[in-house]
């Protein structure tokens, strides 16, 4: 699209000895000056067209090579050029061919870099040179009015301030921005280290006390001068290339737009909105073939700019016609998240091509079927896609993001804001989630499930039995009966084994227990009752009620129904029941029916078909720990003495006479679930369900702790905390982390880590406010906010706002580890809620 209006070639094609270096504009007469090596031409601007006004070089100026040229703001036909050590004044009104009016020396030995006219005083010109001095001259009598110098660095750019009479802004090669007052020549009025690498350009805002500077470190800094203070107000990250020239555009009356060009790498004019300091300029001019040398902005209605490229092409652009970056972004992208779901975004114009090749893709991808994308109506998922060009199928894993989208489950989405705990037990929801066999939806459901568990699991502040019960109920409610069963086994762990061995289980005589047929009947009713607790099939509407630990008076054990029974006894019964049933592998069918198809992990599948030997494992630890066989005597103590086994004389009196009494007695020695639980947790971890394993260990570390190497456990916990943080569930992660502190072995591990410079759990040490753990200068691990031991350098943290190293008062968010200078962060959080570094975290500022 023809966005540039007119262009003009100032150099004959194919000639390399002419090189433009500088452009300037004379407002009143609409003259454009192009100057450079062997080049000094003046162009007229009529409306949109350029035409050559005059070529000022004559035969006398064979070796003309100027680095900067400027029009005088007062005398319309006067211009100055800087060449080597001298300044040449030209006057267009001179009738002779040689328009050079006068020439004077502006520097002693070193070459000049830049010149600038004063806006207030007629005929005053300043020059900045390689010898680090800024000299002011009267161009009429060639006298030096003042000389400003404070350093040895080369002056790269200078400019008089357009709003304050005696102020000069200068930028030096070491990146220092100095604002001078001409009345004081030994020290600049204000100094600021704007850039860490050489800085190249400077521009005063036409109306406000703002200076924009650009440099090799690819940043544009906008500094604000308030009275006697200078501070960096905004920082723009100018993509990949150093900034060679910077200028405020016409629209900058409200102080917002800046334009810049770079000397190498690209040939655009980039427009920036200074309040949006992101890496992408919000607009760009069209790309020219050669890189740009200089440009300036006209103060016109159309926001025009004129640029000159290195091949001598002077071109007029309009900011209005500049192309927004997002319009030219390639409309195809692909991303994959940690669950393995692929997000694919493409613009509608590529859709046609995509449809044709979808079939090919389908064969090659064995993960979520591409055809399932077509089940989604893309517009419902991304309603706010700009210009309806992006169709993306996005399986969100972030909780808050889920709330914003309309999920495939619609109003029944358990995570939508209208849902509450009550809804969760709504069987419809459960069924729906259960029925999800489509792989994408199942993964979606898994994310929800994960979040639910994370939010609702309990692991502290209660008795162990209560915790296990709560977690069991939760698991069953959320449709994970296998996990519920695992928690049930945990409860069984807590059963006082001694009591079993002593045969506490004494049902006594209960009316409703006696059933026809005596023992046989008991057996039958046992069978019947067994059916029920495991019968939580998909058809059933009453999911909650049928699970075992729901109430001690469940119908499953109706013939145990007695208010006299202590709860513990109940559990003993259940324990023995379960032992018997598991050991005799009678629950296979039940396990089958409880495992929904398509679920990747299922504990039932692990424990099904396990024989007595598996359940009765000795307490050798399963992990790599070199602990000696555990001395856990749980099993040994529950090795029932012979007298308990039926048929032998060892049965105590009160039990022995019980043939008709309904007594529960173990058919086998009551099983010790400790090693089995350890295997189960390992199985869970290996199959990606680390969450449950972690909570099991957190609750029951005392019991199960010996089954696992503490380092492995910490590793699991760290991974889980990582996952929680990636889901933005930092609060829960912190809770777990805090809880870990109570563990006995924890301190030992911490000491070991410190000694060996490991970093497993150190990341969340709340005692340090550091953003990273390595010294930035020598890259050795740093233990806390102290100077690095190796190189004695203070750890340099960069402020998230101004990107400069932080010395002194700073504030850091402990959760997302981002922060910076105190004033900046406080200012930021006056109006914003999210972390300035862009990590998406909602940092909380304490008053």
């Amino acid at each position, binding site marked *: 699209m023809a966005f540039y209006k007119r262009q003009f070639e100032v150099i004959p094609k194919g000639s*390399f*000895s002419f*090189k433009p*270096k500088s452009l300037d504009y004379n407002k009143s007469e609409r003259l454009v000056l192009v100057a450079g*090596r*062997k080049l000094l031409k003046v162009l007229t601007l009529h409306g949109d067209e350029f035409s050559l006004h005059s070529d000022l070089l004559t035969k006398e100026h064979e*070796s003309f*090579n100027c*680095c900067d040229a400027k029009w005088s703001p007062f005398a319309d036909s006067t211009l100055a050029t800087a060449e*080597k*050590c*001298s300044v040449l004044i030209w006057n267009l009104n001179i009738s002779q061919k040689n328009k050079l009016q006068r020439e004077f*020396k502006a520097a*002693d*030995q*070193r*070459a000049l870099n830049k010149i600038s006219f004063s806006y207030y005083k007629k005929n005053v010109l300043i020059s900045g040179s*390689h010898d680090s001095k800024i000299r002011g001259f009267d161009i009429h009598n060639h006298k030096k009015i003042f000389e400003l110098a404070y350093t040895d660095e080369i002056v790269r750019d200078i400019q008089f301030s357009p709003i304050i009479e005696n102020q000069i802004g200068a930028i030096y*090669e070491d990146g220092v921005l100095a604002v001078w007052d001409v009345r004081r020549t030994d020290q600049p009025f204000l100094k600021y280290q704007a850039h860490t690498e*050489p800085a*190249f350009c400077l521009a005063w805002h036409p109306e406000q006390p703002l200076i924009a500077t650009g440099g*090799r470190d690819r940043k544009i800094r906008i500094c604000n001068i308030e009275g006697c203070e200078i501070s960096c107000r905004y920082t723009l990250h100018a993509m*990949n*290339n*150093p900034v*060679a020239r910077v200028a405020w555009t016409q629209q900058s009356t409200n102080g917002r737009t800046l334009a810049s060009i770079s*000397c*190498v*790498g*690209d*040939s655009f004019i980039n427009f920036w909105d200074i309040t949006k300091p992101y890496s992408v300029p919000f607009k760009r001019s069209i790309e020219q073939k*050669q*890189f740009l040398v200089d440009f300036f902005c006209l103060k016109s209605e159309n926001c025009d700019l004129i640029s000159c490229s290195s091949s001598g092409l002077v071109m007029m652009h309009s900011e209005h016609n500049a192309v927004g970056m997002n319009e030219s972004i390639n409309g195809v992208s692909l991303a994959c998240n940690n669950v393995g779901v692929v997000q694919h975004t493409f613009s509608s114009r590529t859709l046609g091509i995509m449809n044709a090749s979808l079939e090919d893709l389908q064969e090659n991808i064995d993960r979520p079927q591409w055809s399932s994308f077509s089940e989604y109506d893309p517009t419902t998922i991304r309603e706010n896609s700009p210009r309806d060009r992006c169709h993306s199928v996005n399986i969100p894993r972030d909780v808050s993001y889920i709330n914003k989208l309309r999920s495939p489950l619609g109003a029944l989405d358990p995570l939508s804001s209208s849902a509450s705990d009550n809804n969760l037990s709504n069987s419809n929801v459960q069924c729906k989630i259960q029925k999800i066999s489509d792989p994408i939806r199942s993964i979606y459901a898994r994310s929800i499930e994960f979040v639910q568990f994370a939010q609702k699991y309990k692991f502290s502040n209660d008795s162990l039995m209560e915790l296990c019960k709560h977690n069991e109920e939760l698991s069953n409610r959320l449709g994970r009966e296998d996990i519920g069963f695992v928690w049930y086994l945990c409860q069984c762990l807590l059963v006082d084994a001694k009591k079993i061995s002593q045969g506490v289980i004494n049902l006594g005589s209960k009316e409703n227990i006696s059933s026809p047929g005596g023992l046989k009947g008991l057996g039958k009713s046992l069978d019947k009752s067994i059916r029920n607790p495991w019968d939580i099939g998909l058809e059933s509407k009453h999911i909650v009620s049928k699970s075992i630990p729901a109430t001690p008076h469940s119908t499953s054990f109706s013939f145990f129904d007695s208010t006299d029974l202590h709860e513990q006894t109940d559990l003993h019964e259940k324990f023995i029941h379960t032992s018997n049933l598991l050991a005799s592998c009678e629950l296979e069918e039940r396990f089958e029916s409880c495992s929904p198809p398509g679920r990747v992990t299922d504990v039932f599948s692990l424990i099904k078909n396990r024989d007595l030997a598996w359940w009765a494992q000795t307490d050798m630890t399963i992990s790599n720990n070199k602990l000696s066989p555990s001395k856990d005597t749980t099993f040994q103590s529950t090795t029932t003495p012979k007298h308990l086994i039926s048929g032998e004389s060892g049965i105590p009196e009160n039990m022995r006479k019980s043939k008709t009494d309904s007594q529960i007695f173990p058919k086998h020695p009551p099983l010790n679930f400790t090693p089995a639980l350890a295997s189960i947790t390992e199985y869970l971890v290996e199959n990606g369900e680390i969450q449950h394993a972690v909570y099991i260990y957190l609750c029951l570390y005392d019991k199960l702790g010996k089954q696992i190497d503490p380092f492995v456990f910490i590793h699991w916990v760290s991974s889980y905390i990582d996952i929680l943080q990636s889901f933005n569930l930092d609060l829960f992660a912190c809770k777990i982390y805090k809880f870990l502190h109570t563990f006995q072995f924890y301190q030992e591990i911490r000491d070991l880590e410190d000694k060996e410079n490991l970093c497993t759990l150190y990341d969340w040490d709340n005692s340090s406010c550091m953003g990273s753990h390595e010294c930035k200068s020598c890259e050795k691990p740093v233990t806390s906010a102290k100077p690095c031991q190796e190189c004695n350098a203070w750890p340099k943290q960069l402020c998230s706002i101004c990107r400069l190293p932080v010395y002194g008062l700073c504030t850091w968010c402990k959760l997302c580890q981002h922060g910076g200078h105190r004033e900046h962060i406080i200012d930021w959080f006056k109006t914003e809620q999210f972390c300035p570094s862009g990590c998406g975290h909602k940092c909380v500022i304490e008053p």
Partner: protein
Amino acid sequence: MQTMNQDQLTSLLSSMQPTRNSKLDSLFALMQALPKAETADEKERLFAEAHDKFLPELSTMLYRLKNSNYDKSLEEIKKVLESKYMIPTREYDQPSNFFQDTKHDTITQGTHASDSLDPYDFFLDAFDMESRVSNLVYMLGYHPKFLSIFLEAHKRIMYGNSVLSQSWRHYIAIMAAASQGCLYLVTLEELNFLNCKGPVLWLEGLENIPTKLKKLQEVNRILVSAPWKLEKKHITQLVDDPVAENRWSFQQIVHAFLILSRYHSLSQLALGCGIKIESDHPLSKESVITSKSIWISKAFPDMNVAENLVANLKKIDSEINCHETDVEKEFINLATRDPIKPPPELLVPHPYLRRYLCEKCLLREEFTPEEGINDELICRASEYNWLEHGYTLLQNMCQDSTEKIVDDEFQIGDDLTYGKVGPVACDNTQEIRVGLKRYTQCLLGHFYEDYKYKNITELLKDFRLPIKLITYYPFLFTRADFERLNPFEYTEKIHINIIMMEGRQKAELLYALRPYREYS
């Protein structure tokens, strides 16, 4: 037969610093295998292998690395091997043919008078990197401050992360050194090439290398003989190719150019200081051929050069308001004065190098801008310089902040000073150093508008010819020339060579990167 038992050896090996170089690793693997050898035959075989591979070097390693952690371990190994073989204790080996190194004791024992830095640590770094302390590194030990940054840059460029594989990098270095006629660097890089498991067949000649690498030879030739002639079309030729395998990516090109320019300048340094070939290369046993000096035949000997130099310096310093000289004219004058034009029979390369060269003779062009200052071949600092353009390009193209290290190397090379000229103390030697550098760059066609080229004509009038010789024809620089660079001591002569090397590297690198701009 004295053998070490397993535990001793394990403890010995574990006490070593971790090292990547394959030579030490294989030596230790061998030593580890020794006690495990069951039969006497196997032991014999292992010993024989140790003898062939390591014995000649063991004593060098020991000599160069005294007082280090490696030292004790190597001593132990030596004792084991001594039980079977006679290990010659090496006499101190001079690093160079041009001068007698009398300071070696101070270096190897880790004290150096004029600098607080210990070159010893850097020798260890170099040993880690290349499994030897090469003569070049040893010689740079006289300037430890420079050596540190030099080794870092070397490590980053030759052994760091890059798009080019290590064997390729070493081969490109061989090509670069061969085109400069530097036998030392060619042999050194051959050894490194074999260390990196490069294909041995490549070392037999250019016909065995892949086509992609062969295409670089043209650019190599231009860069070394007339770098100002490098144009966009040469890069296009590398990038465009009908066969996909032969195409160079831009990152690869930039890295290759970096290596080429680096090794061209290193060869200049090596030839300017006359470094001896490494002792484990078969070529080291040949005697050194000395040729007639060109310089001596053209000029008269002059005494009191140092005092003259310092006096000239003071003269320049005092001229604050010197007359406005036409910088450009001075530049052209300087560049085109006194062409050397050596006889063609001297330009024939060493027979060993012929396999790496396409052409029969090492032609050079001396920079002669035909159109005066407006000649387009001149590279102007205001239009293309390291600070703005070169640095940024390297930053975009190379990994791991290579540009920063190269920049540091230039910086430190510029700032290196010892406060004296020969026997005469001098506060500010900057003019001399900058002059040397600018002259080297001027001879290659780099024009710094800001610099007063008249200084060079005044300051360095006695040295113009040898500098020109080293810049254009370093392989013709002889021992006699080296000795004639009075009154500098040999360490200072090395310093001069370093300055010239850095000057050349910057100029060549900028020439190599300049055409790239048109691709942006």
